[in-house]
């Protein structure tokens, strides 16, 4: 006996009653996507529960932990504190958006994999976005400046030493040749 069917997330978000709804056209990971959500719905809930992106997590709900990190027009933002209804025309990038055109991992993701820089993995997709933004959007060259920008992404398993190794590797690569961070939606 198999038990009840476990289904993918995107089918499962019914309409909450009694709230004002708004249709918003998002630019999500290079695709245009129209979502209909209550006006007060956070981007994190929309992405996770309506669009079905499991890479967007929510741990603290107060913008402190970073597991809900997305890029908005290339800048790191807490999706738990952003209202979907305000984001018409804004380019939203999640970890899925860091993949290459054939779905292969992008440079930041490759560095995390090579270094095994993850344990339970819960904070990691957000961490890759934060690293991407710090290195390729804000273009920091100094490791401590990048570390400063990662201080808002918490990892309870304590993978910080491996994450520092990832930064060293990516900074060294960037010193050598131009980074192909342009595969992403970030700007």
């Amino acid at each position, binding site marked *: 006996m198999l038990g009840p069917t476990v289904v993918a997330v995107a089918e499962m978000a019914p309409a909450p009653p009694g709230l004002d709804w708004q249709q918003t056209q998002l630019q999500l990971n290079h695709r245009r996507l129209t979502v209909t959500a209550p006006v007060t719905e956070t981007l994190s809930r929309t992405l996770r529960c309506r669009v079905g992106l499991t890479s967007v997590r929510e741990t603290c709900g107060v913008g402190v932990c970073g597991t809900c990190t997305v890029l908005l027009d290339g800048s790191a933002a807490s999706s*738990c*504190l952003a209202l979907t209804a305000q984001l018409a025309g804004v380019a939203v990038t999640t970890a899925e958006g860091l993949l290459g055109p054939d779905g292969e991992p992008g440079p930041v993701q490759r560095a995390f994999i090579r270094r095994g820089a993850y344990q339970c993995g819960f904070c990691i997709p957000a961490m890759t976005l934060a690293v991407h933004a710090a290195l390729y959007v804000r273009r920091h060259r100094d490791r401590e400046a990048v570390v400063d920008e990662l201080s808002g992404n918490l990892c309870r398993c304590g993978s910080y030493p491996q994450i520092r190794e990832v930064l060293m590797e990516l900074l060294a690569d960037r010193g050598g040749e131009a980074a192909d961070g342009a595969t992403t939606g970030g700007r």
Partner: protein
Amino acid sequence: MLETCALLRSNRDARLIAGGTAVVLMLRQRLIDPSLLIGLRRVPGLDSITAASQWLSIGAAVTLQQVADSDRVRALAPSLAAACQEVGNVRVRNRATLGGNLAEADYASDPPAVLASLGAVVCTAAPEGGGRRIPVSDLITDYYTTQLTSDEVVLRVEVPLIDGRRSAYVKYRSRSSEDRPCVGVAASLVPDPQGWVASLEVVVGAVTSTPQRMTTATEGVVGARHDEARAGAVAAAVAAAIHPIADGRGSAWYRTQVIEVMVRRALAMVVA
């Protein structure tokens, strides 16, 4: 802007939302229940940083990270750039706006104390031309409370530019690197032609409901040489004059000790 003010006037429980980091938090925690949210991000004219000979003008919708990164602000009001760089984390700085930060009047926030120390002024718009210029040092009246009326909107912040001014902001955290400040001290010193003190501002934030502008403690230094002994005296006077709060970041006693230390350190930075 006119439309914004009109909307505010006609919807008593409407809320302005710019970056949203504060408003969305309050929504989620059910602290507010507005019937209407008025987004400010597309209102023109709120997002530029300009400088004239006497003033640095920062639009209310400029983000804290933009303030921190701005070459203009770094050159003309470096303590403000430094303070904005210290706020929260990069995600907050990317979205939170300077105008929103002031309107929120969070007692444990960095920019208000610095702006007060620089003599900054908030320019507002209101229906029927009722906009005002409010010194930042008078703006915040209590926890999360400002002088702003419910149909008033912050347009920009103006920072006076004074030749030779030296300013600093020191943020002391007692717990993690991500903690809000236990004590924040903004200092701003204008030397006279001899190099002595023409004016000195010390503003202490995060220790009481509003930033504390310490005019009495700094009076005695005007016209004098700014040296270590005087700095120590100012620091002691500031610490004695404040009755700080107690919370998870420290007891009142502890804050008093740290206020003295941080004032001394901030003063050392504006002398060097």
